[in-house]
């Protein structure tokens, strides 16, 4: 048996993140003792209607979130306990809501820093209703082998080490949450473990004191002894001592009290929990408490370190008198499934990767491009074209090559509002569409007829050069197999009206005295085609393509240079329209050739 929490305890958790973390811990305990998750509901109005997914073993349990305790208990009438994880300023309202719900018999408040007055009101309200209000500042309650409320007990490994999977004979009541695990551990190492351990919280006036819980332990036949971990301040330990001395008690009482150091500290210097404050005339001091406990027959070890041996001695007596028997340990205990990360770390599992990358990695403190840290590239004077080189071709291009790339980008960043890409972006921007979608609308236009000829132009020029074709052979090959030569021809520009961008780029590249077989070939092609028709000139796509192939970029990346450059212009158009707060636009009828049939009657549906 146990007190307060057992196999029939079902829980609603009031609050957000901290409550969810507690539920995870509680699920680990439920998994260890092979019971289903005892958290049936959360109350957290902002997320009402959703669920929290709580890991249980290797699966997930969906726990619904409600807007009120009443709604939770209506849907889950088995709920009889509430854990309050609400902030200190709203904790009292939440606690009251739980206490006033007829299904709920125990409310344990984990919230710290609750005003003393609020805690007193909650405690009194619970007493009036015949319910238990535990806390505030409680670490939780755990009954070995049956129920865990809150994070008390710690990590899964500790639950096993402390033998919380089965009942022992010792009850524990502690103000300190941090020491609760320590005592549970000690009870499991020096004796047969615990029945129930309760964190009552370190505040001055906890909702339920030692005496109330001592009464419960006295009435729980499985509990043979109770360990109290006390602190200076208040009079709860003195009251516990009086309770123990008032009549013959079935349970043995062991106690430690902290705060003796106070005697040798400068006057008025106090520390520890909020409740650890000495009253006038030495009342509430560690000494007065430990004296009172000793006086009424409790076992009070001189130091915390002596508690283990004292518990052992008590346990040996209980064994000898036959009141307890050596526990039988289960042979197999469930093991908490490891997460993939844990299992991989322990070399227990191999996972086939889903994707493979060969260009970048940002798992460290900064991204690395082809292995080079971004900050180091910056600090050593590298620029955007080098990053393009690293991510598109996995090589650190030269300063000269970077200059060519930069010039290509500058020349093709924008081409006014009338071209397909910019128009697409502008129409979207005027329709109130956001930046990324509007830019995408413009980028969608890039294809065989607009800006998207770079890759094909590069591919065919390279094909010709690689195969040492003559211009005539090349043109014949293209005519036979593919049609017009990509990169040749312009809608408005011609020999008499040349494209300044092409002139600029060709002039620069030729001035560098580098080997440019593709560009040279393209210019030869232009010589022939422009004679046939004067707008069949080498256009900017073709020029870019030839130059980029000449400086070693892979054919598949070539359109990327146009896409990247033009994105700069498309973003500009979107921002421009946005700033002007442009109106929605639509085509005028006179810009449309309506070639559809004239209006006519619809035949009956057959």
């Amino acid at each position, binding site marked *: 048996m146990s007190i307060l929490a057992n196999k029939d305890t079902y829980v609603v958790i009031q609050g957000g993140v901290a409550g969810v973390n507690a539920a995870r811990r509680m699920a680990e305990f439920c998994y260890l003792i092979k019971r289903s998750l005892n958290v049936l509901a959360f109350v957290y109005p902002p997320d009402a209607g959703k669920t929290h997914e709580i890991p249980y073993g290797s699966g997930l349990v969906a726990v619904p979130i409600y807007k009120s305790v009443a709604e939770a208990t209506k849907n889950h009438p088995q709920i009889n306990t509430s854990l309050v994880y609400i902030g200190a300023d709203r904790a009292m309202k939440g606690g009251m809501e739980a206490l006033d719900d007829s299904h709920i018999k125990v409310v344990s408040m984990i919230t710290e820093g609750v005003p003393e007055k609020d805690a007193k009101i909650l405690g009194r309200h619970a007493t009036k209703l015949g319910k238990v209000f535990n806390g505030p500042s409680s670490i939780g309650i755990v009954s070995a082998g049956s129920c865990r409320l809150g994070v008390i007990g710690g990590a899964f490994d500790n639950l096993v080490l402390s033998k919380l999977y089965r009942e022992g004979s010792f009850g524990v009541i502690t103000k300190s949450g*941090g020491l609760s*695990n320590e005592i549970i551990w000690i009870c499991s190492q020096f004796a047969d473990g615990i029945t129930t351990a309760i964190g009552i919280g370190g505040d001055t006036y906890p909702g339920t004191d030692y005496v109330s819980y001592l009464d419960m332990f006295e009435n729980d036949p499985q509990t043979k002894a109770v360990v109290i971990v006390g602190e200076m301040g208040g009079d709860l330990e003195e009251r516990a001592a009086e309770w123990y001395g008032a009549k013959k008690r079935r349970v043995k009482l062991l106690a430690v009290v902290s705060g003796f*150091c106070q005697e040798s500290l400068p*006057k008025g210097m106090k520390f520890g929990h909020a409740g650890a404050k000495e009253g006038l005339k030495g009342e509430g001091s560690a000494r007065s408490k430990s004296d009172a406990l000793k006086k009424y027959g409790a076992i009070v070890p001189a130091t915390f370190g002596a508690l283990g041996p004292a518990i052992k001695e008590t346990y040996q007596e209980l064994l000898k008198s036959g009141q307890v028997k050596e526990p039988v340990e289960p042979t197999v205990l469930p093991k908490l499934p490891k997460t993939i990360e844990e299992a991989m770390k322990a070399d227990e599992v191999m996972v086939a990767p889903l994707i493979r990358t060969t260009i970048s990695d940002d798992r460290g403190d900064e991204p690395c491009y082809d292995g080079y840290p971004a900050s180091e590239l910056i600090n050593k004077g590298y620029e955007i074209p080098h990053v393009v080189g690293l991510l598109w071709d996995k090589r650190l291009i030269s300063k000269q090559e970077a200059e060519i790339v930069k010039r290509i980008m500058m020349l093709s960043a924008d081409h006014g509002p009338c071209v397909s890409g910019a128009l697409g972006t502008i129409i979207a921007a005027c329709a109130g569409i956001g930046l990324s979608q509007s830019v995408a609308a413009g980028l969608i236009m890039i294809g065989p007829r607009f800006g998207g000829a770079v890759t094909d132009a590069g591919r065919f020029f390279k094909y010709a050069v690689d195969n040492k074709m003559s211009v005539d052979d090349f043109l014949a090959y293209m005519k036979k197999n593919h049609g017009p030569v990509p990169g040749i021809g312009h809608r408005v520009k011609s020999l008499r009206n040349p494209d300044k961008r092409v002139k600029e780029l060709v002039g620069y590249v030729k001035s560098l005295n580098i080997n440019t077989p593709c560009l040279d070939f393209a210019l030869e092609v232009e010589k022939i085609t422009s004679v046939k028709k004067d707008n069949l000139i080498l256009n900017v796509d073709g020029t870019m393509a030839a130059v980029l192939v000449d400086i070693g970029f892979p054919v598949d990346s070539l359109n990327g240079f146009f896409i990247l450059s033009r994105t700069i212009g498309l973003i500009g158009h979107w921002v421009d329209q946005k700033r002007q707060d442009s109106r929605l636009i639509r085509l005028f009828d006179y810009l449309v050739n309506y070639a559809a049939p004239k209006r006519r009657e619809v035949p009956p549906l057959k």
Partner: protein
Amino acid sequence: MAKVLEGPGMGLMKKWGITVPHYVVVTSVDELEKLGHANEWLKKSKLVVKAHEALGSRFKLGLVKVGLDLKEAEAATKEMIGRQAGSITVSQVIVSEMIPHKEEYYCAVKSTREGTDILVANCGGIEVESNWSRVKRLTMEVGQQPSEEALERLAKDAGFHGPLVKKMAQFAGKMFSCFDSEDAQYLEVNPVVLREHEHELIALDAVTLLDGDAKFRHPDWNFAFAAEFGRAYSKHEMEVMAVDSKIKGSVKFIEIPGGDTAMLPAGGGASVYYSDAVVARGGKLANYAEYSGDPPDWAVEVLTDKVCSLPGIKNIIVGGAIANFTDVKKTFGGIINGFRKAQSEGKLKGVKIWVRRGGPREKEGLDAMRALKDEGFDINVFDRNTPLTDIVDKALQK
């Protein structure tokens, strides 16, 4: 509990209808001179000048002057401001009117487990302590308000007669309202006096302790709480407090001059057991410290830095129980960073470090601590199998 200085304390009482003497809190003589022009009472009344700081025994230190006129009060102000008393520099004085009176009474309201006690006595000043049996008590349950009749009965019990019964009952009633509405934990007026030739009870001196946790619902608490141990907080203590107010979980730090055993334990409960163990072994604490509630590692690092900066320390106790949810590896990471920083600054020479801990990721955390040996730290690391305070025994072994 949060102590409030006299000025703001009297302000709260005034708010709830309790008559207090005229008073001003000033930070310079100029201010007092200007106030003298604007306030008749400063010219007409005899005055009391007191250092307005969290100091005990101000009388003995010469930081209370009585029976002054305005000129003398100005002189006293000039003398007190800037004076050093222990670690506190007097930066404010409170100047209040002296109330000529014959009788002195006592009234206090305090929080108890069951509710609230209202205490009244028909003697006051130092007389109360020697006549504690004359203090009468009215016990109110949680949520209960005292009735007029009950308060009058209390005044009668305490030995008040005639019209004073009603006056004292009303005074105690207002004290209760102030206590209840302001989330006080202790209010004491000693003495309560009756001004000569008038019929009004006045609160002459007040002790006000408020519940700091209730600050969120008192936007008009525009005053700072005073340090509770008769000295101002040190620079390092205030730096840790500033961190504490910003984080999830907590870090706490109090310096104890003259000690040689530095404390860096986890948990509000365990930390005191560790301190007890040091005292029990005849050691001298150099500080109190505590971190809990899974604080961020940088906060623990700040705390570690302060602990390592304590002068003349021989041992550092990095103790802790088996944690529930504080990540041992993460918090130890903060401590390790703090140790490394201290070492690089030439601190920790000849200082022995003692570690004992359990809890989530205890193995990783303890291994990281053990590895510090290779970096030249004199460190001894123990796990959950070593009882909690045994590292103190080992550290202080002669």
